[in-house]
């Protein structure tokens, strides 16, 4: 199963994760 987030954000939005990285819920994805 998968969760897909699609969202609008300012151009300077940065992801704090890498492809393939394990994440836990509540962990920051971006800012």
């Amino acid at each position, binding site marked *: *199963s*998968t*969760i*897909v*987030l*699609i*969202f*609008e*954000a*300012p*151009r300077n*939005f940065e*992801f*704090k*994760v*890498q*492809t*393939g*990285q*394990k*994440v*836990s*819920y*509540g*962990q*920051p*994805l*971006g*800012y």
Partner: protein
Amino acid sequence: VHTVQRSKSKVKWRWITIGTATFGGISYYIYFQFQPADQPKVANKSTVTLYRKMPLKMMSRAWGTINNLELPVVLRRPLIGLYVWMFDCKLNEAADPDLRNYKNLGEFFRRTLKPGVRTVNADHDLTSPADGRILHYGICKNGILEQVKGVTYSLKGFLGPLTWRGDIDDVNNLSDEEYHQKLKLKPGHELYHCVVYLAPGDYHRFHSASDWKISYRRHFPGDLLSVSPGIARWIEGLFNFNERVVYAGTWKHGFFSYTAVGATNVGSIRIYCDEELTTNHRDHGDRNNVRDACIIEGTEMGKSFQKGDMFGEFNLG
């Protein structure tokens, strides 16, 4: 006598054909499930058609039914323990680590976590909605999204008509770029996406990823193909084929959508604020029969969600 013999022969051949096709399909499926991560080959149209013809929804429903039967207490530890061992589940994080207290694998699959084992980050706007692995992330360009590097799917196919914006145009008449423009993003803004893959042993409940508000729900009955990274590299447009529930709304920066995509054996999606939603149900009929719901202000679904709020769960079935 001749007619009876001929019809018996027909039945025999039919079963041989069905058996061979099913065996071939399952072998093909298992082979691609375990392909190395850097496998770049994308399946051709006929292979995708063949894969989509497999009775995966029916198999998933049967799997869900079996796993919802109450197990005798004496069998719970060995059977659920085998699953824990195979998929390396973190039993110490479960609210109840005693396997004998779970009636079946289905109940263990939707287990809750001990309070305090996860912290919802307070400083960032966007947090992970689930325990899993980042399959891909980035900017959506000209209405095209990447499910993995170099393998794409269409935004208009994934979300469907922009009904929540009062726009009910047939999206098939729009190009991907036109659809993207119709989202009317604010100046200086981009459309981003992030895909979190939940592996079999992971905690299968999911949470709100940000502070946001839902305005529309769209359920695509679709297929239940595997969404493992190997299959995502192999099937172009995978997420547009699968059964999924799209929740569209707004957050502090504008448009926000949250989609739970089902997979083989995990097609039963429950959203806590949406009691009317049923997924992987035989009564849904045609897989293209989309089911929409407007969200009414002041209802349970129309309330504002906070980062980390419990949102829903995936179930076996």
